[in-house]
């Protein structure tokens, strides 16, 4: 789960990670009021969407008066912001963050992720603030300083020094930087984050470090012990069909193709997408209906897949293990009675009692249900059906 910049900054404040003062606004007048309350003579209006690259796309704007803050906020609210991270469809701006303008002397990058090979959190810093870390990693990997932090010893001075000296900080800057990094480590661990990005981290004219941007992601499996963070979830940032699937314990991801897929197990579901492509088609989705594949989950699966108007055929690919194929076959038949399925459905059932299952499907004699004998046969038939080349 990801959160907005303003929410991440709230958490940062709580942990003593320095951030500029600011508040979220939902309307122009509210934005103006916040600007007046913050005082000063320079403000920044920032579109709150779950994507970076807002600056270059017109989603971060400076204002010199509270009136200008109001004007910019009004323009930004309701607009669709397209950044290189949103995809071409962009994201609608529903809230803006009003923040005091900072005196930027230098921009850095500071981030944390789980390093899956050392199996520890790693903190990364770079002098290339404002640039995408992936880009720096590709072009100037030597400019990224990384320290893996063994959680059994926690954040130590030497971790901080390695980063600080690597960034070429001066003697006076080292202490405040290390304090900043240590507080950030605590946020990451305490909140079960799986990603923190501060891009840019800035040094101000008076030698302070401030998080000017803040991106945070969390381990979904740990949300049960962070109700405060769970509450920060913004459903308008998520694909409604993916969310609907989640409510039923299914895992769905929408793709661009026209062959719908319904599979049990995440690995087999990915493999099914791959084989559709291999056989000359394009998968319309990833869908894992779980081990059970009961009539209810299959029916829900059909509903989810058919919300995508591009879908021209559906490939149901189930490997029946402990749940027997004959039961799954009956479930599929029942599901087609609950949901109107108006495209060809290729069904491949393998595993326990596969022959009985084939018999059941054959005897049901439903014209748009096409049995397949194995994975390759199923994929070929589903691709042909989507192209209108079957029968």
């Amino acid at each position, binding site marked *: 789960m990801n959160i907005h910049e303003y929410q991440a900054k709230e958490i940062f404040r709580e942990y003593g990670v320095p951030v500029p003062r600011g508040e979220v606004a939902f309307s122009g007048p509210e934005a103006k009021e916040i600007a007046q309350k913050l005082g000063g003579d320079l403000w920044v209006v920032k579109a709150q969407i779950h994507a970076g690259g807002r600056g270059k796309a017109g989603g971060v704007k400076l204002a010199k008066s509270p009136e200008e803050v109001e004007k910019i906020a009004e323009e930004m609210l309701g607009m669709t912001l397209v950044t290189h991270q949103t995809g071409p469809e962009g994201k609608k701006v529903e809230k803006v963050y009003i923040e005091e303008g900072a005196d930027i002397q230098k921009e850095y990058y500071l981030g944390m992720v789980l390093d*899956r090979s050392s*199996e520890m959190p790693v903190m990364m810093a770079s002098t290339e603030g404002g640039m995408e870390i992936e880009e720096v990693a590709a072009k100037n990997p030597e400019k990224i300083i990384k320290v893996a932090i063994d959680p059994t010893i926690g954040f130590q001075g030497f971790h901080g020094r390695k980063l600080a000296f690597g960034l070429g900080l001066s003697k006076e800057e080292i202490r405040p930087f290390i304090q900043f990094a240590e507080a950030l480590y605590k946020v990451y661990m305490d909140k079960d984050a799986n990603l923190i990005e501060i891009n840019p981290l800035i040094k101000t004219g008076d030698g302070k470090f401030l998080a000017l941007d803040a991106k945070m992601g969390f381990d979904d499996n740990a949300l049960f012990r962070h109700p405060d963070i769970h509450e920060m979830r913004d459903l308008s940032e998520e694909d409604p069909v993916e969310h609907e699937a989640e409510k039923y314990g299914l895992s769905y991801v929408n793709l661009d193709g026209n062959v719908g897929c319904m599979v049990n197990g995440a690995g*087999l579901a990915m493999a099914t997408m*791959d084989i559709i492509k291999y056989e000359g088609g394009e998968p319309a989705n990833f869908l894992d209906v779980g081990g059970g594949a009961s009539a209810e989950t299959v029916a829900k699966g059909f509903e989810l897949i058919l919300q995508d108007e591009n879908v021209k055929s559906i490939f149901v690919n189930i490997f029946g293990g402990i749940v027997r194929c004959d039961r799954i076959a009956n479930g599929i038949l029942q599901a087609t009675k609950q949901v109107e399925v108006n495209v060809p459905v290729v069904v491949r059932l393998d595993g326990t009692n596969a022959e009985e299952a084939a018999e059941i499907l054959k005897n049901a004699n439903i014209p748009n249900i096409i049995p397949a004998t194995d994975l390759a046969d199923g994929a070929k038939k589903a691709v042909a059906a989507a192209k209108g080349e079957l029968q």
Partner: protein
Amino acid sequence: MSILVHKDTKVIVQGFTGKEGTFHSQQCIDYGTKIVGGVTPGKGGQTHLDRPVFNTVKEAVDATGATVSMIFVPPAFTADAVMEAADAGIDLAVIITEGAPVKDMMYAKMYATKKGMKTIGPNCPGIITAEECKIGIMPGFIFKKGPVGLISKSGTLTYEASNQVVKEGLGITTAVGIGGDPIIGLSYKQLLPLFEADPETEAIVMIGEIGGTLEIEAAEFIKQNITKPVVAFIAGQTAPKGKRMGHAGAIISGGQGTAQEKMEALRNAGVHVVESPADIGKTVAHVLGKK
């Protein structure tokens, strides 16, 4: 022969009396696995599935001599259970539970390593030595005995691969489902040398997926150390970037962990990489000269 577990391996179950624990323990017993008891705190002294229940892993180990624990406890308590097993001197913990927090597993694995306990999973189907010992939730009958070792991140894809291998008239020595979480126990790199050393294993199938670098590390290792033929399939060639595909660890982040880069690394290590998941069995038969 086989790797890690065989017909005489003594197994206890943590989370023995729960719904999942009960169902799958019974399935394992029916398969022939020597389940010698279980642990459910507060139910010590009772009998479940004709086997003794203990309050602690230590008591269970002392009374039964078990060396392996199969773990079914809920996600919030999984790490605790793993660490208890390590503390009690268990050799191998097979963690079936799906949904354990990454941070918990990070600590649990560090402690297990310190205590010399191997782990498999979490979020995995378990391990099976064909026709001898099943420790997990996989449908046992798919795994007929034969010359192929199998290592896989995915459950149903393990069944699919085994089924294809069996349809070619071959079979499995041991199949290990290593799980699809960001932090897992034994992985390709630790399991490959075990299969290399197992006289009955003649070929190895490895099934990977997008996310992380385990398959890349495996490729390096294979190049240096493995002489037996390896057939690989990597799921997620068509997966979009930045999207989690079902498994917590199956995500291409920052452009890293794509199927393509893993396939290329494996090919460069001399592995027989199949593009279509339907070609796993055929390719194994081919490399073993059976076709």
